[in-house]
């Protein structure tokens, strides 16, 4: 995907390889190919591609992956800041 890369070194994703049990769930649910399995352990191979959707962390059985999930939407952040809440998405993005 030429030119569609977001900021470098911005995301909150962490992976603790010590507690990873190698189930591969994170590889299966990540929509951006952030993980790969190597020697029966998950490995982060493209950290900057992470969009902090949180799918990996929600489905990791051993809590080896953590990420502060949220909506990467400027308006949601502005609305959240005004209301003093977390970013709240009020729009209707259209990808199915």
């Amino acid at each position: 995907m030429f030119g569609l890369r977001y900021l470098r070194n911005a995301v909150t994703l962490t992976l603790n390889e010590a507690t990873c049990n190698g189930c591969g769930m994170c590889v299966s649910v990540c929509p951006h190919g952030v993980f790969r399995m190597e020697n029966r352990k998950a490995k982060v191979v493209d950290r900057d591609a992470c969009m902090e959707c949180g799918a990996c962390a929600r489905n990791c059985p051993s809590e080896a992956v953590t990420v502060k999930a949220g909506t990467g939407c400027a308006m949601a952040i502005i609305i959240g800041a005004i209301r003093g809440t977390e970013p709240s998405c009020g729009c209707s993005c259209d990808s199915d």
Partner: protein
Amino acid sequence: MDATSPKSGKCCCSIAAPTTADGIASLQPVADQAVWSAPWVQGKVATPAGDVPRVSTSLTWADRLGGWKVRWAIGRMRYLIPPGLYAVGDPTDESPVLVTANYKLTFDSLRSQLADRDVWLIVLDTKGINVWCAAAKGTFGTDEVVRRIQATRVAELVSHRVLVLPQLSAVGVCAREVLNRTDFRPVFGPVYATDLCEFLDGGIKTPEMRLVHFSLRDRLAVVPVEMVHAAGKLLTVAVCFFLLAGLGSDGYSPERLMSVGLPSAVVFLATSLGALVLGPVMLPYLPGRPFALKGLWLGLLFSAVLACGTGLDAIGIGGRLDLAAWCLIIPAVASFLLMNFTGCTTFTSVSGVRREMRKALPAQLLATFVGVATWLVGRFV
């Protein structure tokens, strides 16, 4: 775990029928009886759990028109699909069970892929929102999946215990929790419905099936949504420019509304709409990673076009002030609008958006403020 769909071999009576399901009054395939008059329902499949509506797999012109209206946010709520259990073809107790959202476009794109297949389809109540956004909001979440499995009594209809969910729902659904609470094992299928048949046939999710794209088509598809969202605000600002243009050192002059106000309003609207359309189209080709920066380039391009068109020699000092003002306002607005487009993309992280906003928002506000002030000064010289 690459998704496969083996039969668990469990007997269907191994799950006791739930007595209550929170928030759902009656246990039946589809509670909303209006479903029987829906144009996309073609007959029914009689089952021990009740009559299951059979959905058509071909989209009619009415479906396409409906989809078009949904995109343009016309009467959106009228296109909710009633949550519940549906049949495609003539499913048996071995047919796969697919789970989806009750957003019209999601439902349509799914069923249109299922021609000549026999599957069960569980439509969740995601409040008419697509899979990904609903999963992020939590409406396409573990609780709703569990609730709908119980309410539709799907356990009585199939002998296996596998659910195929769209991959993007993993944002809201924890597979092992659904398994613990229902005995059904969720399997995350491909991201796109177009890969579903290949997945169902092969049982393998290829690496490509996992990846989300953001093609030109995808980007164009969100343009109308963005326009509808922004239209009111942009028009208000344009009207303000139009009305303020009457001001001058000689008081308020209605003639100036036409000579200055109208062009000002047009310049503002044209460049804003230009950014809303060209921004998404040119997204991969605008230099830099922050969206605010991409928007800035676009705004500078528009400003340059405007400056060339104005003919600097021909205009007086007021005209030059105007031009300077637009060269501040247009890039600031374009930058803001593209920064806003982060919400429509499939790859921006909230940490990243926060980071770029911290830098960009103050600059955008300052440029807009100075620009508008300059434009107002231009009215009085």
